[in-house]
């Protein structure tokens, strides 16, 4: 009776003050702990039950997802490869557009003794390539075919010392001969009255192997030898000869076509 009276008094006192009584706080706290534990156990039991029930379905779903992942990985690899090839494909498309009817070829080798600057292509006379055909890529002039077998052809690069290509400085239409230096190109036999400048673009003139206007490079240095009839210039090649993968060989009919060069 006395305890009941005390509890009632405490509750009444708390009710009057509008605050939760100490008994209410203690009961609520204890209940909270039990309720939380009970809820956790209940949820765990529910989840375990669900998992047990759905295990076969999960296995099949997992297998399906793995298969899908594998497919997506393959597709991703294909797309990445296509993406990495896109610039090269665009470059080849540009080179083919510049030389319609040209034969696209891949570089497969070099001079075994590295005595001359030349490359070997995987296309030969069977594909219509003949000695003297001009070879270009998207950046400009690569070289000239010097030897052909039915399956492959050898191209002398414009940077080889034996290569000579008629050339024109685009800005002033001054003529010269582009000769290889085994590393870059030298524009020779340019008239002394030509006002050559560093950065001038040099293109092919009309010749046996190339139609006019194909980029050879840009002038990097101008030399005016004293007492000489001609001046010369060092030309930085337009083509990066360190990595020539795909090129286009201009067929005979194309190089015999009327030129736009005056």
């Amino acid at each position: 009776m006395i305890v009941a009276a005390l509890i009632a008094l405490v509750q009444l006192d708390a009710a009057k003050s509008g605050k939760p009584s100490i008994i209410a706080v203690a009961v609520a706290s204890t209940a909270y702990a039990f309720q939380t534990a009970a809820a956790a156990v209940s949820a765990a039991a529910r989840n375990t039950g669900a998992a047990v029930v759905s295990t076969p379905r999960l296995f099949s779903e997992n297998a399906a997802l793995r298969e899908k992942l594998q497919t997506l990985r393959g597709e991703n690899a294909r797309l990445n490869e296509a993406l990495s090839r896109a610039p090269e494909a665009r470059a080849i498309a540009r080179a083919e557009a510049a030389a319609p009817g040209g034969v696209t070829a891949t570089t497969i080798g070099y001079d075994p003794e590295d005595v001359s600057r030349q490359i070997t292509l995987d296309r030969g006379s069977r594909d219509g390539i003949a000695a003297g055909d001009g070879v270009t890529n998207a950046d400009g002039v690569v070289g000239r075919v010097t030897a052909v077998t039915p399956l492959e052809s050898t191209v002398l690069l414009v940077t080889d010392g034996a290569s000579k290509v008629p050339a024109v400085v685009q800005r002033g239409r001054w003529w010269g001969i582009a000769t290889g230096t085994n590393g870059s190109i030298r524009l020779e036999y340019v008239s002394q009255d030509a006002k050559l400048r560093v950065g001038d673009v040099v293109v092919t003139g009309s010749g046996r192997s190339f139609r006019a206007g194909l980029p050879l490079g840009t002038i990097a240095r101008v030399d005016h030898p004293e007492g000489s009839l001609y001046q010369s210039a060092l030309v930085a090649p337009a083509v990066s000869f360190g990595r020539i993968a795909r090129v286009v060989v201009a067929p005979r009919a194309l190089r015999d076509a009327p030129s736009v060069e005056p």
Partner: protein
Amino acid sequence: MPVRSDDDIARTRAFWASSKPSDAIAPAFVPDPPTWWHVGVALLAALVLQSTFAPALAFRGATVSFVTLLVVWYGLRTGWAYGLLFGTIAGSCDDALAGSTGVAWTFATALCGAIAGCAARTQLAETRWTLVGGVAALTLLRYGAFAIGMQMQNRPLALPETHLHAALWQSVLHAVVAVVVLRFGPEIGGRFAYRR
């Protein structure tokens, strides 16, 4: 290659081992010449390597020519006739791959193989330093013979000073390779029967 009996080989080895480097005495034959198919495979590998990676192997404008080294080695291990034959085959392969050199490499490499073969059973083929010098000299000779061969075919080499520079560097590179092979050769398979 004539087949020798074990007794012949043992006698030649003993005779050669007992002679001094200053003796001008040569053995009757090379006791253990390389087999033709080993050399054929090596030539094929050298040609593929060079024609695929030549620009990548270049150093100061010169490239190590494994074909030259192989021909010199084979000549030294067999004799002038086999050296000449192998040099001709290797050189013609070089010409075929180069495309526009005519028969210049055939001529130069055959000469190189024959001259290396002339030293096959002499004291020159014994001493490391004469071998190293010989390899460098034969490299220059081969390049020079190639230039003459091109000239004879009315295809003179452009930029001769560049080629001279490349030839000198190539002879240096070959000498370095020869030093390495002679130093570590026995471990990597380059057995020299007469090495002291």
